[in-house]
C-alpha cells in the first residue's frame, strides 16, 4: 500500500524522501550498533565531524550547485559561526541550563555567519566566475588572519580586545581570556553529540530541499542556467543570489558550532582555504546540484583517510590518487558514457529498464 503510494508520488518528492530515509536509517543503524557495543572508537569519533561536513556540503551545494557560483571561502563562515557559538556557550553555559544555552549558541553561530554572508555577499555577488571564487577565498583568509591575531577577554572593567598581542589587551590579572590569539579558544566544554548532528542534518535538509523546490529555488536555478534570460523575465538577480548565498552561510555557521563543540579547543587556522576546498571536493564529487550525492561524498571522504591508516606513510598519497581517480571516473564524459553502456548491458540482461539519469 505504502509502496504504491510511493510509486505515484512526484518524482522530486520521492527522491527527497529517499534522502531523508538514508539519513534516518543511517542514524538508527549506527545507534543500534553503538548500543550493542559493535562500533569502534575510531568510527564513533568521526560521527559528529561527518554530520558537520554533511551540513557544510549541503549548504555549499546551494551556492555552487544551485546558484552556480564557485565559493572558496565556505570555511570562513564555518569559522565565524564556530567562534560566535563557542563564545556564547563558554559565557552562558556556566549559568544557563544546557538545553537553553546550546540552542542559543547554535543560533548565535548561524546569525553571525549569516551577517558575514551579507557583508561578503553584497560586494562579491557582483562578480562572476573565477573572480568571485578568488574573492571568497580572500574573505576566508581575511577572517582566518584576523581571528588568529585576535585577543579577547573580560574582567571587572568589561571587555578587552587587541589585535596585537596578549599584553596589549590590558586585562586585569584575574580576568578571563576568551580568545587567545593563535591559541584560539581552549578548554571548551564539549557538547556535540551524534543525535544533535543528525538533527542538524535533517533540519538542513528540510530547509534547503524546500527552498530549492520553492519559487525562490526556481529563480535561483534560472539565474544559474542563464543569468540574462532570468533577468529579462524579471527575476531580481541581487535578491535571489544574496538569499541563496546567505542561507548557505547560515548553515555553514551552524555546522561550525556543531564541529567546534565536538572538541576542547578551537583555532582559526583550522578553517583555512584547504578546508573550503575540502568541502568543495565533497560537493563536486557528489555531483553539483545533487544533495544526496553531497551527503554520501562528505561521509565517505571523511572516513576514507581514517580507513587508510593501515597504509602508514602512503596514506595521504593513496588518498590523493583515489581523489583523482574518482573525479575522472565520475566526471569524464567518455568514462561516464562507457559506464552507462556497461550498466545498460547488465541491467538489460536482468530485464530491467535502462537506468535513469540522476536527479537531485
Amino acid at each position, binding site marked *: 500500500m505504502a509502496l504504491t503510494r510511493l510509486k505515484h508520488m512526484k518524482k522530486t518528492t520521492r527522491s527527497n524522501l529517499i534522502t531523508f530515509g538514508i539519513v534516518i536509517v543511517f542514524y538508527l543503524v549506527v545507534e543500534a550498533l553503538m548500543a550493542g557495543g559493535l562500533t569502534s572508537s575510531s568510527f564513533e569519533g568521526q560521527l559528529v565531524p561527518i554530520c558537520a561536513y554533511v551540513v557544510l556540503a549541503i549548504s555549499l551545494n546551494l551556492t555552487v550547485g544551485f546558484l552556480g557560483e564557485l565559493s572558496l571561502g565556505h570555511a570562513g563562515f564555518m569559522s565565524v559561526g564556530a567562534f560566535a557559538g563557542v563564545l556564547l556557550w563558554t559565557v552562558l553555559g556556566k549559568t544557563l541550563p544546557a538545553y537553553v544555552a546550546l540552542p542559543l549558541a547554535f543560533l548565535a553561530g548561524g546569525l553571525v555567519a549569516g551577517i558575514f554572508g551579507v557583508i561578503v555577499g553584497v560586494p562579491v555577488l557582483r562578480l562572476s566566475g573565477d*573572480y568571485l571564487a578568488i574573492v571568497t577565498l580572500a574573505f576566508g*583568509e*581575511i577572517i582566518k*588572519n584576523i581571528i*588568529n591575531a585576535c585577543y579577547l577577554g573580560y574582567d571587572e572593567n568589561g571587555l578587552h580586545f587587541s*589585535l*596585537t598581542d596578549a599584553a596589549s589587551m590590558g586585562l586585569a590579572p584575574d580576568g578571563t581570556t576568551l580568545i587567545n590569539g593563535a591559541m584560539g579558544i581552549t578548554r571548551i566544554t564539549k557538547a556535540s553529540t551524534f543525535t544533535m548532528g543528525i538533527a542538524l542534518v535533517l533540519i538542513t535538509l528540510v530547509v534547503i530541499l524546500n527552498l530549492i523546490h520553492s519559487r525562490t529555488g526556481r529563480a535561483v536555478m534560472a539565474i544559474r542556467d542563464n543569468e540574462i534570460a532570468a533577468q529579462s523575465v524579471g527575476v531580481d538577480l541581487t535578491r535571489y543570489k544574496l538569499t541563496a548565498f546567505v542561507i548557505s552561510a547560515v548553515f555553514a555557521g551552524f555546522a561550525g558550532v556543531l564541529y567546534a563543540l565536538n572538541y576542547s579547543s578551537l583555532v582559526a587556522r583550522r578553517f583555512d582555504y584547504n578546508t573550503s576546498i575540502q568541502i568543495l571536493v565533497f560537493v563536486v564529487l557528489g555531483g553539483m546540484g545533487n544533495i544526496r550525492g553531497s551527503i554520501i561524498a562528505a561521509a565517505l571522504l571523511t572516513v576514507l583517510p581514517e580507513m587508510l591508516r593501515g597504509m602508514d606513510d602512503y596514506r*595521504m598519497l593513496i588518498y*590523493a590518487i583515489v581523489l583523482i581517480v574518482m*573525479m575522472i571516473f565520475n566526471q569524464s564524459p567518455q568514462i561516464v558514457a562507457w559506464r552507462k553502456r556497461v550498466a545498460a548491458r547488465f541491467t538489460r540482461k536482468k530485464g530491467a529498464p535502462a537506468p535513469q539519469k540522476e536527479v537531485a
Partner: protein
Amino acid sequence: MQFLSYLISGISLGSVYALIALGYTMVYGIAKMLNFAHGDIIMIGSYVIFFAFGSFGWNPVVSVLFAMAVCTVLGVTIERVAYRPLREAPSLAVLITAIGVSYLLQQVAQLLWKSDPKSFTSIVTAAGLKPLALFEGQLVISAETIVTIIACVIIMAALTLFVNKTVPGHAMLAVSEDRGAAQLMGVNVNATIALTFAIGSALAAIAGALLCSSYPSLSPTTGAMPGIKAFVAAVFGGIGSIPGAFLGGILLGVIENLSKAYISTQLSDAIVFLVLVVVLIVKPTGLLGKKVNVKV
C-alpha cells in the same frame, strides 16, 4: 631610505610572485583551468635543482635547464593523464583534480626527499653575480632580485612575442578564444594545450629556482602558499593577461611588505586580501583584464 629599503624587499618578493603568476596566467588563459598544482611543480623543480646543483655540483645554468626539462615532462604527463580526460567535463571537476594532483605531488616529494626542510643555496650568487649597492651601500638590492625582475621581463616579452607572432602561438590564441571553432579550423586543440602546459611547467622550474634562491627554505609544502599568492596576483592583474600577471605580482609583494613594515605583521595577509577585494569590486576583471561582453 628605510622606506626605499622596504619597498625594494617588496619588489623582490613581488617579482617572485610575478614569475609564478606568469605560469598560472598562461595556463589559465589558454586551457581555461586553474592549475592548483602549479605551486607544487615549482617545488619539484626546486628539488631537482637542489640535488643537481647542491648535491651533484652541476653548473647552475645546466641545473636549471635540467629542472626545466623535468618539469616540462611532468607537466605534460599530468595534463595527459589527469586533465585531458576531463576536458569536456564541468570546469570545477578539473579544478578538484588539480587539487588532487597538488596533494599527490606533495606526498610524492615527501616520500622521496623526506619532510626535513632543506636550505637552498642561491644559484644566482653561485653564478657569480653580486648585489647592487646604492647610496654608498645604504641601499642594497640583492642579485636575486635583479635577476628575478630581468627574468620576468624577458619571459613576459618572449611569451607575448610567441603568442602573437608564431603559428603555435596563434593556435593558442584561437584555442583560448573558442575551443570548438579552433578545432573546426584545423587547430590541434590537444597538442596546443599540451604545449601550453609544457611552457607553463618550464616557467615553473625557473620560478622555483628564483623563489628558492631568494627565500632559501625548501620542503614539500614550499610551493603551496607562494602558489596561492601568485594565483591571487594573477587575478589581481586580470587573469589571462601576461602584463597583468607581472603588475599584479609586483603590487602584491609591495603591499604585503609595506603593510608588514608599517601597519601590522599579523594582519599583512588580511590587508593584501582586502586590497584585492577592493580592487576587484571597483574593477571586476582585475587591473589589466579584458572586459568580456556577454552575448545572449
